Structure formats: C-alpha cells, structure tokens
C-alpha cells in the first residue's frame, strides 16, 4: 500500500462520507489510516469459521 493508494482512498472516502480534510491534516490522517490498515490485516489473517459470533450479545 503506497501513500498514493492511501491518499486515493482518503479522497474518495471523504467525498462519499461528506468529510472535509484540510490538506494540512492529510499526512496525519494518512499515517493513522496506515496503522488501521495494518491492524486490519493482522485481525483478518486469523482464521475464524463463518459461524463465529461477534462478542456483543443483544438480548431482546
């Protein structure tokens, strides 16, 4: 994942979500997003069955 890839994602997401990202903030947002992507890959790499239930339990 390059900085350009992340910037493209940030620009598209910001437009979709109605978020304004001042150019001065961009580097910090990209740095945070890069960490998030890395954390996401760590979690995604763990095999879980389709039947695995999420942790919170809703009681009707």
């Amino acid at each position: 994942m390059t900085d350009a890839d992340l910037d493209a994602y940030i620009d598209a997401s910001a437009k979709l979500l109605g978020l304004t990202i001042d150019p001065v903030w961009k580097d910090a947002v990209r740095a945070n997003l890069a960490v998030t992507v890395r954390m996401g890959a760590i979690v995604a790499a763990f095999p879980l069955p389709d039947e695995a239930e999420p942790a919170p339990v809703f009681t009707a």
Partner: protein
Amino acid sequence: MTDLAWQSATETAAAIAAGTLTAQAATEAALTRIAAHDGILNAFTDIVGARALAKAAAIDADRAAGRPLGALAGVPFAVKNLFDVAGLPTRAGSAINRERPAARRDAVLIARLEAAGAILIGALNMGEYAYDFTGENSHDGPSRNPHDTTRMTGGSSGGSGGAVAGGLVPLALGSDTNGSIRVPASLCGLFGLKPTFGRLPRTRTFPFVSSLDHLGPLARCTADLAAAYDAMQGHDPDDPFCADRPIEPVSASLNAGIAGLRIARAGGYFRANLMPESANATDRVCQALTIDREVDIPEAARARAAAYLITTAEGAALHFDRLRARPADFDPDTRDRLLAGAMVPAAMVVQAQKFRRWYREAVLRLFESVDAIIAPATPCSAPLLGQKTFVLDGTEMPLRANMGIFTQPISFIGLPVAAVPVAGPMPVAVQVIAPPWREDIALRIARYLEVTGACVAQIPGE
C-alpha cells in the same frame, strides 16, 4: 498534625467519624491545595467549591446529631470531566461539548460516592473525547505529572492521575477504554482499578467506545480503591451493558493475603517492547509474589489490533456528525485519528468483534490453571510533554498509540485489573489481572504488594 494532602480517603473518613477532623476542614484544605498547586498541575477544569462546602456542612451536622456516617464521609474526590456533574456542561475534554446544556443530574457513580459521604470537589482534565494515552489537551492544556511537571500524566484520565498523585484529592474517578485508568496510574505512580466490563454503571457519563468503556477509581492506597469500589457497585438499568449482578464487596477480604492463589507472569508479547524501568518493575512485583511460572496470553498482539479497530471505528461513528460539521473545532490529535476511523470498512470491525469472542474463550481457559496474571502496565515511565515518538526494542514508534500496548489486550475482554505502582526516579505500574468478576483477587494481591513494601504510591519529591 497529619498533612491532609497525603492522608488517605479511609484515614480521612475515620478521622471525621472520630471527631478529630471536620468535613469542612477536609474540604477547605483540598480547595486550598488546589488553589496553591493546580496552576502548575492543571488537573482540574472545574471546581464546585460552594457545593462541596454545603455537602461538608451537612456531614458535620449529621455527625453532631449522632446520625450514621457513610464509609467515605467527608472524603474529597474529583471526577474526569466526562462524568455528568449537575450544573456543568459535560465537556469530555472537548471544546465542542462546552456548548451543551449543563447536566441536570450527576453521573450515577458520583451519586453513589456521595451517598457514602464523599464530597465532590470538581471535574478533571482529560484528553479530548478520551482518545489518548498522554493527558495532553489542546483546549485546556496538558495535565502535568506531579513527579516531574515537564512530563506527561498519561491519559486519557490525566487530571485524575495528577490530582491524586499531587495530593490535591485522595480519590478520583476515571474511565478506561483501552488503558486510560491504568496508564495514568502507571505514569503518576498510583493504585488504579479497572473493574470487570459491565461491573460499574456508566450512566450519565459521556461515552467513547460503548463496546469497551469502563469506569473506575484511582487512589494512593488499596484500602481507598476498595472502599470507593464497594460504594460504587450495583446494577443500574440505564446502562444496558451494566451486568445485573449482586454487589460483591471487596474491602472485608482485602487483607486475606495471597496464600493459595496461583499467580503467573505474562510471557511472550508482554516480555517485549519494554524499557528497563518497566521490565524492572515487573520483575520486582513477580519477585515479591515469588512467581515461578509464566503463561502465554494467546494472540495478545492480535487482540490489541482488534481493540484498536473497534475503538477507532466506534469512536469515529460516535463523533461522525461533528467530524462532518466542524472538524476544525477538534483537538488536532483526536481529529486526525477519528477521520481515519470514519473510513474503516465494516468487515474489519465485525471481524474484530468475532475475534474478540474467540480470544475471550482462549484467555478464560488460561484462568482454569491460574488465579491471576502479572504484566507490565506501560512500556516506560512518563515521557516528556510534547514527545511524539519513543523507541521500543530498537524501533521508533508513535507514542500516543503505543502507550497502551500492554493494557489494550486485557481491557479488550473486560478483565478486572489493579494497577500497582513501583517507586523509582519516576514511578511505573504493573497490572494485576484477574478473571472476570474477581476484582477481589486483583485487590488482595495489590494489598499484599502494598503491605510488603513492593508497591507504594510515592510522594513527589521523596
């Protein structure tokens, strides 16, 4: 005369019950200390002096009339400013929330402490919306570490750490989503309790991550932690995550010792990324407990990653409208993390919640063969204010996100933890981790470490 600044909450309550101290004198002394020292420490954002003195007068009148006093009668305390305090807007460290109407009622935990006789003195500085481990805040200025005011208190309950370690009040409440009680307890050298997830109601506090938010006390001794915790227990239906469990007091068993408890040290993940002071503090606690066994908390790094994802995504969802409407009004450090959090794909968050259940079951299996686990609380003692990175095991890392690497995998599944301080040039704490709903075990071990002298909340400058 005893220096009231360093008198514990339970000592203060005992002196007031015995008639050797009045609640008014205890309250006035706290207000005087705050006026003298908070200009530097910057722990308080709000003082409720008139309210506190009125409450003190009522307690002194109760005693004079022979009416029974609560366990914390006359004890000054303060709360992180994400707790609702009647008459104040609940700012939660932000500028934006100051525009909210004043809270009409106190948070449930404030009401419970006051029902036990404690006296609310004010609200405490914190990182904006609780998304930090530093205690820094661009709106209110940083809370400063009483042991070295050029250093961080840790966060996000930074004012809670500074107020108690600085001798302003003996007891403070904080919140802990990923470590925000345990990190300031570590950097300020305090005892802290993060109870089991769902134990204490969060009703009328400003949230951060509903899936992970906990509340709890910080104090300079275990007896105070236990007394405050006992006074705050009990179900509240207005917090849907609050467990409907009976009150399980811990004060009576605090001195039960550690005989028969199987205690192990966390290995693997918890042995790496440690600066010498944190490694030494953990060694010292393990030696005091004569631990000869190590356990591996499985997949702790992945647990930390999953906690990170849930936090950033849920936190961003909470603040989404504000992020769209007025991003420039946020603390820049918080805003940039939340903007990135708003862009997290749902699949990542759902996978993190699925992993959370797997991890919970795996860790609970560990507790079939041990009763408690010892682990470091922070990678290091207090960094300098403004410091952005630190070097762990030869790698430079962002400090703000990585101070919680040892706390996050534990709160991720809601385990109760007592943070226990080890003295040094700058203090640093260690986590005593117990199975769910066994705060009593964590506090018994903390008490043992306290009475044997291995752990102490050192007074600044001593």
